[in-house]
């Protein structure tokens, strides 16, 4: 049966075909659709979960793999930082059943904090990494990853990038999910309890083993070479290989080498391919990883080889590759004249369309309430990771810092210690709070911080596509397990004050913020209102004759539904959700609500 699926769907289907017994992950672009695809296909007998964070996901999976089960863990690249503690140790201990960590990289970056390269993490942890170049290959390769994991009893990393995750292709899929049969955990404390002596012993074994894996990978089906023989060759990985392949279609005399297993580097394969090659261009995204591996190999074997790539500035150090960029680099490398393209001169100035908080987004009201309450005060606004990072845009301008998941709370604490006069606020979403906010609040309380924690509770994980979290009460097995109360958690930690308010009751919200900010110690305001994308509203706001076009509503809220039509303020009814924030901001009481269908 052929199916047209996204790369992430292909990874999910490949894992199901491999009989994966447990799949855990934490949402993050571009990896989120893997767990979601598994949920949509028959998977009777598989345990599926959105874990509270990536560290939890990997630890749950590790125990399953100790028991001989096949385990899949999914995350984005910065999620691997969170899971790095269990990963580094697990690399020493090893596994019984196959364990594959999918860590999706985001060149660009398009929707991430960093341009880090997961292949370096694999090298750092001394475990194998697979790097697919297309959805079709990803489907096959994820199955191989489970095989290699079991063959060498080690966790392995599977590293797709955005264009592989989000590219579509038709895949010949399997008929029925059959979970792998496994024996269960066999107690062996000399194997599963990590102690310095065990780590010392296994370190040596792992380094020897990796030489063998490099040899094994030298015959791996997706490390390939085509074209040539030629004196100047091209080595590529990931989607860059596809861009190069497409360009080199008209130049079959040039040898194109694909590296699908960056670590351990397939040295023998590469030595074979370098026969007669004098110059080689390395095409890859993020760091010059395979380029450096090749330089090491050339040094080790005293090869008279010129290596071009990121390290020689022939390929940009940062950003995403594209078919055009790769074509330009290849034309320069192969001395091919540029074809005349459509002239793109005199293109008129294009309108910029920046991302903004949606019309009716409760975060806008929450930020606005804090902004009004703290007018004239010295403040620190510590943001976090989620849609609400967009609170930094004008006119709200309510995010002073954003570092990583959960950092808002602890950074607000830091500001409170170095400046007793300022009012420090942390803004953190509900899903982020569960992922990594709770420990920060505990830290703030025990260390006598003076901060106000604003929980922006919209009852979902909005930015990555509305995944459930502990506060929503439904898990990925489809079970109603009851909502975990953020308020009870905060009260349990022992905060001075925990207030829950509706951000759209503006005056009350402003008063609450003022009161809380004046209490010494750690206190929290839960701004509770659902994301407009999950609870559709039929309400609309309408402007009446009292409007004097002062534009205060536009200037203060920046809501995209408020527009100027021939100099008059109007409300785009297709965008408006009737939240009523503008009505409360209007000094003329010129905006009213209606319950239009």
């Amino acid at each position, binding site marked *: 049966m052929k199916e047209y699926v996204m790369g992430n769907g292909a990874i999910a289907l490949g894992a199901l075909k491999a009989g994966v017994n447990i799949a855990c992950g934490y949402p993050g672009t571009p990896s989120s659709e893997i767990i979601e695809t598994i949920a949509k296909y028959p998977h009777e007998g598989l345990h599926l979960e959105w874990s509270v964070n990536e560290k939890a996901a990997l630890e749950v999976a590790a125990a399953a793999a100790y028991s001989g089960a096949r385990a899949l863990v999914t995350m984005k690249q910065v999620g691997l930082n969170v899971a790095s503690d269990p990963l580094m140790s697990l690399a020493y201990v090893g596994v019984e059943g196959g364990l594959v960590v999918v860590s999706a990289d985001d060149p660009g970056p398009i929707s991430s904090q960093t341009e880090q390269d997961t292949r370096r993490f694999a090298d750092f942890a001394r475990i194998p990494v697979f790097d697919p170049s*297309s959805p079709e290959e990803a489907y096959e390769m994820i199955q191989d990853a489970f095989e290699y994991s079991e063959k060498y009893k080690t966790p392995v990393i599977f590293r797709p990038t955005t264009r592989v995750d989000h590219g579509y*292709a*038709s895949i010949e899929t399997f008929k029925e999910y059959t979970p792998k049969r496994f024996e269960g955990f066999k107690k062996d404390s000399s194997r599963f309890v990590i102690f310095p002596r065990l780590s010392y012993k296994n370190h040596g074994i792992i380094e020897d083993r990796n030489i063998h894996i490099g040899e094994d990978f030298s015959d791996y089906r997706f490390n390939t070479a085509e074209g040539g023989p030629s004196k100047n060759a091209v080595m590529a990985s990931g989607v860059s290989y596809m*861009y190069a392949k497409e360009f080199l279609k008209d130049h079959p005399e040039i040898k194109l080498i694909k590296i699908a297993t960056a670590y351990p580097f397939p040295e023998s394969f590469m030595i074979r391919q370098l026969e007669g090659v004098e110059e080689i261009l390395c095409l890859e995204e993020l760091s010059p990883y395979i380029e450096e591996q090749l330089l090491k190999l050339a040094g080790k074997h005293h090869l008279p080889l010129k290596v071009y790539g990121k390290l020689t500035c022939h390929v940009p150090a940062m950003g995403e590759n594209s078919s055009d960029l790769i074509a330009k680099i290849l034309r320069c490398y192969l001395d091919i004249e540029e074809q005349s*393209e*459509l002239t793109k001169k005199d293109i*008129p100035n*294009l309108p*910029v369309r920046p991302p903004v908080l949606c019309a009716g987004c409760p975060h806008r009201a929450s930020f606005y309430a804090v902004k009004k309450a703290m007018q004239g005060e010295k403040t620190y606004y510590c943001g976090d990771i989620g849609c609400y990072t967009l609170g930094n845009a004008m006119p709200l301008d309510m995010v002073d810092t954003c570092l990583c998941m959960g950092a808002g709370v602890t950074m607000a604490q830091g500001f409170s210690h170095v400046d007793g006069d300022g009012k420090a606020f942390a803004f953190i979403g509900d899903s982020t709070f569960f992922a990594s906010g709770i420990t920060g609040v505990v830290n703030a309380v025990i260390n006598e911080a003076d901060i106000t924690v604003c929980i922006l509770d919209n009852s979902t994980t909005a930015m990555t596509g509305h995944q459930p979290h502990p506060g929503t009460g439904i898990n990925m097995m489809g079970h109603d397990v009851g909502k975990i109360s953020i308020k009870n958690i905060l009260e349990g930690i022992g905060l001075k004050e925990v207030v829950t308010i509706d951000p759209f009751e503006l005056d009350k919200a402003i008063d609450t913020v003022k009161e809380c900010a004046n209490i010494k110690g750690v206190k929290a305001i839960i701004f509770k209102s659902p994301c407009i994308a999950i609870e559709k509203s039929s309400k609309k706001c309408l402007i009446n004759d009292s409007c004097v076009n002062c534009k205060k509503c536009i200037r203060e809220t920046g809501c*995209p539904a408020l527009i100027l039509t021939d100099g008059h303020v109007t409300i785009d009814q297709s965008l408006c959700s009737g939240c009523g924030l503008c009505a409360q901001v209007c000094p003329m009481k010129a905006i009213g609500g209606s319950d239009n269908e």
Partner: protein
Amino acid sequence: MNKDILICGVGGQGTVLASRIIAASAMSENNTVHSAETIGMAQRGGPVTSHVRIGDDAYSPMIPSAKADLIIGFEPAEVVRNIGYLSSNGLAVVNTSAVKPVTESLAETGYDGSEMIKYLEKNVNCIFVDGEEECKKLGSAKFLNILLLGIAAGSGRLEISKDTITSEIEKRVPAKFKEKNLEAFLCGFEIGKAKEN
């Protein structure tokens, strides 16, 4: 058959459904298809593109510069933004109704699409259509995507049979809007056929 089609517009206009229908139609006529869509922080109001690549010569899901045979443009500035993709003998189907940036009321640009249309008229082989006007006749702006798909099909540049596309539309739109969507497709088809011949 080898064909590269770029669909562009702003988030919320229904570009994704149009690209899925084209991909599914091409597949059901036994072609290899690859595609890619804008996903992530781009949300309602942001620029969005879908690349649909039909045929065995396409390896990556992204169309190289100046290789697109057809652009289906939901918004004039978005067509100009992506004009570098269009091949020298390619065709652009362009909805002339401009979508102002959502930040327009905060930072006025005066953008109304007219400059973009002038540029396209001068430099590119286009079929222009007033999408707003045509959709008014159909009863809702929701049919814009299927209308534009119809024009693309009618122009003959898609090289996928009318029946194949019609049956894919039937499979993919909600039952209660099926008739209206088919009407939108046929309306577009006639426009495309008339303008290209």
